[in-house]
């Protein structure tokens, strides 16, 4: 009963101090909400159970490709040929297995007039059993659709089925056309299927086909593909390392045997690794999520320090009430009970606000990081997160109550009424006040400097010119069902067939170029930045015998229109001629970075480069300007090459429209139909949006760090203001005396500023020491940090501005009134 009475009184009391209550609730609500969201994110990424039975027995197998000297060339690749053999004779450790691949070229549903683009996964029946694919209609793959069966069946996602087939149950047993093959629909996967995002959170597959129809399913020995994985369920979770050790030498030896005939691959090896499914799904995202969690903990610490100041200030203001209560016989615990009652209200309100803030944070994360961080769709209020939030609130309440109780001088309060109100029953010593300011500054400076470093780095990357034109430029992915040339044909004939495809696409190009909306068109395997981040590659030797010196480049197989269309500057030499394109002349244009790899001065015009098999010789006829497109694979500009050769698996049209014109798939399909029925436009991607997609991580980083900078600055301001304001309350009379004997407002302000600078400087020194420790710690990790002077100067300026502002604000109420007010304690 007494507690309810105390709560009612506290409610009334807080209603009379709305500004104070709002500040505490907002400060705590915002920071606690951020912490709850980050806790939940980390919980989902790192510890929440995956929606698959025996998840700890599920592994994702892939290989890392190593150079002769042990240097890593690529990771998460699969020598498909080897694993087809492995699949036929699985390890004894394995109870279930699957091969998994995905489409990385444009594919469409060709049975539909508008041929919508689809994302295709290729797999074996074990995949559906391991991940318990729920079926809305029909069935999953069975042993009849296993490797080598060549049964043309398909499972559609519920989404595709509803969107393009009007949720027609009769679709079962009907056929859909994908590529040049007709597939019988045997099942509709329910929308509740939690597909493991093995190819990153951005991709959701719409269609599952048997493995036999994967483009690389019949890869030759030595072929390595980044689009395939070996999935397995182990009999026991603890068998993972043993399984890895078992397969590692077998895979390495088979690979060595298979590449023995390829001189450029000599000495290289692959290392098999069996990653736990969770690790494969989270990738390197835990670095980002843990950093955000640490940032939010720091923010809450700053907020907690601020609120401590505010609570103490309030207790000081309430001391007369407390004195009367003490005079009437209230014990120490009664007074603390009053404080706890107020805290209960404040923390309950803050917790409610925090849960709303967390929901907002989930929405923001989903909106802006949905394609970069895993499991975001699962974020939401759950038991562990609610428990965590309540626990943090309870700890904060107890911590605050303990701190305040330490500063309530019960004896002084009892005597206060008898001593005409002079002295104070609640005081915080000067040393503690200065320590509070120092701690606030240290935490704020630490957070500000770290955030500012990241922010400036992200802004620098966002502000950098890409080095090519992107407005009104579009990437048109092509669903190409031209039958692949028979693997048994001689190489020259296979090349001729591929050349025929390129020529057909160049005819499409020429037709499209006549269209009134079109400015320019080019045929190539990829644009400078593709919608999915993929790129072609070509490796060269500087001399046929120098197989130890391999030059890697991102390769664009294209025509004479590509460089002008994207406005890519040629620094030396010339562009391709129509004749060279037509003849597929062995000429090459490379970028500056590759030129400098060949020769440090980059003067390599006229030099020759050789194919890795030594059979082709290319003459360098042009050197183009570098791009600036840092991505997951290369944080700095990489070598680039432009060739006249055939397109390979991926064929795109690059289209520049006239200003203000809209890209139209129908127009493109009509142009393609005039040339061949094999081609359909799969999708049209804006190059600008491709760039935005690439820079999304930087935008997200800049956004989050900007919020952190603003929040930490705001919180530090509130906190330091709280301490200074409290100090001013204690010193009001002293300042009144100083003013009475002639101190001018400016003099008082200057003096206080000098006094406040001492703990601020101490805080900055502490922050510098912490930063040094952090820096030394980072040297021992894989994190790499680029430091910028602005990232130090900006926070220091902000802290100095903050000191000036808070000093001015805290003393403003005193120095702008006549001295008498301060002397009378008004």
């Amino acid at each position, binding site marked *: 009963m007494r507690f309810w009475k105390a709560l009612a009184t506290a409610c009334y009391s807080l209603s009379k101090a709305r500004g104070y209550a709002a500040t505490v609730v907002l400060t705590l609500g915002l920071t606690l909400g951020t912490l709850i969201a980050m806790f939940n994110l980390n919980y989902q990424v790192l510890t929440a159970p995956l929606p698959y039975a025996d998840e700890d027995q599920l592994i994702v197998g892939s290989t890392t490709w190593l150079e002769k000297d042990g240097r890593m060339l690529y990771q998460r690749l699969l020598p498909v040929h080897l694993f087809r053999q492995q699949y036929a004779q699985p390890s004894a450790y394995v109870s279930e297995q699957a091969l998994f691949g995905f489409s990385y070229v444009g594919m469409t549903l060709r049975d539909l007039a508008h041929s919508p683009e689809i994302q295709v996964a290729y797999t074996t029946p074990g995949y559906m059993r391991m991940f318990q694919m729920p079926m809305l209609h029909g069935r999953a793959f069975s042993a009849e659709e296993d490797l080598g069966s060549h049964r043309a069946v398909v499972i559609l996602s519920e989404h595709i089925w509803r969107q393009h087939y009007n949720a027609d149950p009769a679709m079962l047993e009907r056929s859909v056309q994908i590529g040049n093959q007709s597939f019988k629909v045997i099942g509709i996967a329910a929308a509740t299927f939690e597909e493991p995002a093995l190819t990153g959170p951005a991709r959701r597959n719409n269609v599952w086909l048997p493995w036999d129809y994967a483009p690389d399913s019949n890869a030759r020995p030595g072929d390595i593909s980044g689009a395939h994985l070996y999935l397995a369920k182990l009999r026991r979770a603890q068998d993972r390392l043993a399984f890895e050790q078992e397969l590692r030498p077998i895979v390495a030896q088979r690979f060595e045997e298979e590449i023995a005939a390829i001189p450029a691959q000599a000495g290289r090896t692959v290392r098999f690794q069996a990653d736990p499914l969770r690790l494969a799904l989270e990738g390197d995202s835990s670095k980002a999520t843990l950093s955000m969690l640490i940032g939010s903990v720091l923010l809450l610490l700053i907020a907690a320090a601020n609120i401590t100041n505010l609570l103490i200030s309030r207790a000081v203001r309430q001391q007369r009430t407390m004195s009367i209560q003490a005079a009437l016989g209230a014990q120490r615990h009664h007074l603390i009970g009053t404080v706890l009652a107020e805290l209960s209200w404040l923390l309950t309100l803050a917790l409610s606000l925090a849960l709303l803030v967390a929901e907002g944070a989930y929405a923001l994360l989903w909106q802006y990081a949905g394609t970069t961080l895993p499991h975001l769709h699962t974020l939401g209020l759950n038991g562990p997160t609610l428990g965590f939030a309540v626990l943090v609130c309870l700890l904060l309440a107890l911590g605050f109550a303990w701190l305040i109780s330490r500063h309530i001088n019960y004896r002084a309060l009892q005597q206060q009424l008898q001593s005409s109100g002079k002295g104070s029953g609640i005081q915080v010593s000067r040393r503690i006040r200065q320590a509070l300011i120092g701690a606030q500054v240290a935490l704020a400076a630490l957070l500000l400097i770290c955030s500012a470093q990241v922010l400036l780095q992200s802004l620098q990357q966002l502000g950098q010119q890409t080095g090519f034109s992107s407005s009104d430029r579009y990437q048109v992915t092509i669903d190409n069902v031209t039958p692949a040339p028979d693997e048994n044909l001689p190489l020259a004939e296979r090349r001729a067939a591929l050349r025929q495809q390129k020529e057909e696409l160049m005819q499409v190009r020429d037709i499209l170029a006549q269209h009134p909306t079109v400015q320019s068109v080019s045929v190539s395997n990829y644009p400078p930045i593709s919608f999915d981040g993929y790129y072609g590659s070509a490796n060269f030797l500087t001399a046929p015998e120098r197989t130890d010196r391999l030059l890697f480049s991102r390769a664009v197989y294209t025509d004479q229109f590509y460089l002008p269309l994207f406005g890519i500057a040629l620094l030396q030499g010339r562009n391709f001629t129509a004749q060279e394109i037509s003849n597929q002349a062995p000429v090459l244009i490379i970028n500056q970075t590759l030129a400098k790899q060949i020769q440090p001065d980059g003067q390599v015009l006229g030099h020759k480069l050789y194919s890795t098999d030594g059979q082709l010789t290319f003459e360098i006829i042009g050197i183009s300007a570098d791009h600036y497109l840092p991505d997951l694979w290369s944080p700095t500009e990489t070598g680039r090459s432009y060739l006249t050769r055939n397109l390979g698996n991926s064929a795109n049209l690059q289209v520049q429209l006239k200003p203000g014109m809209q890209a139209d798939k129908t127009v493109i399909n009509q142009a393609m139909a005039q040339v061949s029925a094999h081609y359909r436009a799969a999708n049209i991607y804006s190059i600008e949006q491709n760039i935005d997609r690439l820079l999304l991580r930087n935008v997200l980083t800049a956004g989050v760090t900007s919020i952190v900078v603003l929040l930490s600055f705001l919180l530090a301001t509130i906190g330091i203001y709280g301490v200074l304001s409290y100090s001013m309350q204690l010193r009001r009379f002293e300042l009144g005396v100083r003013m*009475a004997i*002639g101190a001018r407002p400016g003099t008082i302000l200057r003096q206080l500023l000098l006094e406040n600078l001492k703990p601020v400087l101490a805080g900055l020194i502490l922050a510098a020491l912490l930063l040094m420790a952090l820096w030394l710690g980072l040297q021992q990790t894989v994190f790499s940090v680029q430091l910028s002077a602005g990232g130090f100067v900006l926070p220091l300026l902000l802290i100095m501005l903050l000191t000036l502002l808070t000093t001015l604000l805290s003393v403003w109420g005193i120095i702008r009134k006549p001295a008498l007010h301060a002397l009378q304690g008004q």
Partner: protein
Amino acid sequence: MTQTPNLPQATISMRGITKVFATDEMETHALRGIDLAIDTGDFVSICGPSGCGKSTLLSLLGLLDMPTSGSYQIEGHEVSGLSLSEAAYIRNEKIGFIFQSFNLIDELTVFDNIALPLRYRRSSIPKAEIDARVQACLQKVDMTHRSGHRPNQLSGGQQQRIAIARALVGNPALLLVDEPTGNLDSKNGDAVMEMLCELNRKGTTLCMVTHDPRYADMAGRKLHLLDGRILDADGAPLQHPQPLRQVAP
């Protein structure tokens, strides 16, 4: 003794001074038309019951607050409408304060407390001169031996002597004294009053608020305040104050 506003050498001239404290709900008229002149070398005491306006008048005299209306001149300069900064400057140069509760700053030594007004001067004073003037004041109040102590190491009487030294160090034209013996026992109170009388005999102008009639009688002029007005010798409010002498600025 009644007020004599027309005497030559007037240091302080007040005419028609009012002070109203207004809240949302009511107005309190603390002073209702005060006319007052204090001349160089005067020792004026202000007496009256609690709430009559003594402290308010002293605050206005010391520019700690500004009047609601009326004219206030110090050495011929109108000071009733000064900014806070200008008022602080005048206080620092022309006025010395002695408070009932001493109002020394605990964090500063005795020496630094006394030196404080000199350090607030608009034009900075050399350290040697500050040292000399502080030492001189310490000698005046016979506290040289305590210059390195903190106020809380001193007795009440000693603290008040330090407060007097601080008030004198800037050579003020007027010394305002608010209940100087209020926090002292009679022995220390007598000693402080003796010191103030001695200062007045040497030419310092004093204006003192006190409850104690014994000490009020030690002043050359005695003013009685009641309900915000100065009473005449018969106890009636002064109705027709004589015009103030114009003083060249």
